[in-house]
């Protein structure tokens, strides 16, 4: 399947993206959202006109580093609590419609 969008493409196909997100769109919704998506991308695209040659690239907006912990176990939820909100449970397992592959 060919990619319908990359960082460099000007346009993002709303039906393709909706497909990735497992969303069904009516024709009317698709048309409306495509317009909005185009507007958003155009707006963000304005950033490209800025001269950032003197700015260091950044990928996070926080100063936080290393959200880590030592390797010490702690008690979790317990099975009954974990399964309490499951629409369907059996044999202590979460049950979902059959998926293959």
């Amino acid at each position, binding site marked *: *399947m060919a*990619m319908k969008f990359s960082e460099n493409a000007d346009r993002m196909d709303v039906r393709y993206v909706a*497909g*990735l997100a*497992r969303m069904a769109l009516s024709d009317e919704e698709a048309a409306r959202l495509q317009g909005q998506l185009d507007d958003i991308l155009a707006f963000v695209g304005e950033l490209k006109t800025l001269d950032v040659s003197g700015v260091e690239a950044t*990928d*996070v907006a*926080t100063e*936080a*580093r*290393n*959200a*880590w*912990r*030592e*390797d*010490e*176990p*702690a008690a*979790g*939820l*317990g*099975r009954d609590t*974990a*399964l309490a909100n499951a629409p*369907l449970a*059996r*044999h*202590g*397992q*979460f*049950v*979902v*419609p*059959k*998926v*293959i*592959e």
Partner: protein
Amino acid sequence: MSDYIPSIGLEVHVQLKTRTKMFCACPAHEEGEPNTTVCPVCIGLPGALPVMNREAIRKTVKVGLMIGSRISLRSMFDRKNYFYPDMPKNYQITQQAAPLCIGGAVEIEAGGQRKTIRVNHIHQEEDAAKITHMETTSEIDFNRASTPLMELVTEPDMSSPDEAIAFLTALKEMLIYAGISDCNLELGHMRCDVNSSVRPSGTDKLGVKCEIKNMNTFKGIHRALEYELERQAETLRKGGTLVQETRRWDDEAGITLPMRSKEYAHDYRYFPEPDLPPVVLDAATVEAWRAELPELPAVRRARFVKDYGLPEYDAGVLTADKAISEYFEAAAKKSKNFKAVSNWVMGELLRALGEKGQGIADAKISPEALAALVALVDARTINMPAAKDVFQVLFENGGDPAAIVKEKGLAQVSDAGAIDGFAEQAIAANEKVAAEYRGGKEAALMFLVGQVMKLSRGKANPQLAADALRRKLGK
């Protein structure tokens, strides 16, 4: 397959041996009842926040250090988005843009040839839940979800199934040596995606790549590759074309099959994981982790050859298992006869362990006792058959070999008078054989030595017995 040249690359997923999971404090590697080691993070409840397991990062970095990777002092986690119930938050936390370890190489030996297999990178990620497919539903157990995984991706540098297995074997040995993973394939500690392509010989450009997903036995990987490489070559020979695709191995049928093509399967929409800040390591920490690395199998092998004068073969057998190599070395340090120690470890000890289904840790015979046993043989205090009896006692009960020799009366008879007596008896009882020997039949002597051994109930020194017989038979 001389008309086509195969290229094989591997993506190896290894479960790290940690006490807890990658992003939560639930116990990892629990094989108990389903969904008993779970929490909001690993079942993907909305709003739950991941917190990294520092030990997992340390272990992955150590693998990078072992294979000569460049360690990223700053790395990042990304989200790999996909929809499948084994990952209910709809993304896997992994590393794509900035992995922990970049580059590196593993030395392998296949078919008597040494070769360097380049590693592209190693990244850190989390395992998925386990799905069991039933008649009309699928059942999900999250105990495995978020188990720390490292994924090591090689360059397509292997050119035969044997080389692929040699690579995996070398990697597995290394990971076990350094305590990174138990690498128990039956428990799914090591799983592999196998990429392969073929190109006409005499050309350089890699052919169309096929990926075989989720292989979990070395034997399966070897068979799948043999089949797949031949399938690709045969398709091209017949003038067909190959498409880049994902296939699965049907072990029973012995063939690979295309997987039902998942639409959008390769568009994971990676983006930086906003819930985890960057992983920043300082050089001093990385160097401290480097200092913890054990001597690697290949290095130890070479050292055994050099320091103990062992044949390559012995060094290979002894170092294939870290505990065995340490046992050997402990015994060798107490001995003067390294080759004899090696023979006992490779022979009697491994045989006895194999028969009992035990590991070296269970062996009651201490390395010191084995060294002492070798010394008793070298001093001719006991002969080889007696030594094997003593070994058996040591193996089952432990103890001191000299004490066992004394208690069982196994010491060799080296007293010339006694051996002369046995020799005379043997000749008297076997005049015909003695005459044959005198007539020039050299082999007859061995029979008489056997008789002396019998008369001494196995305790005569065979060398002295042969000397005594020769003397008495006038030669």
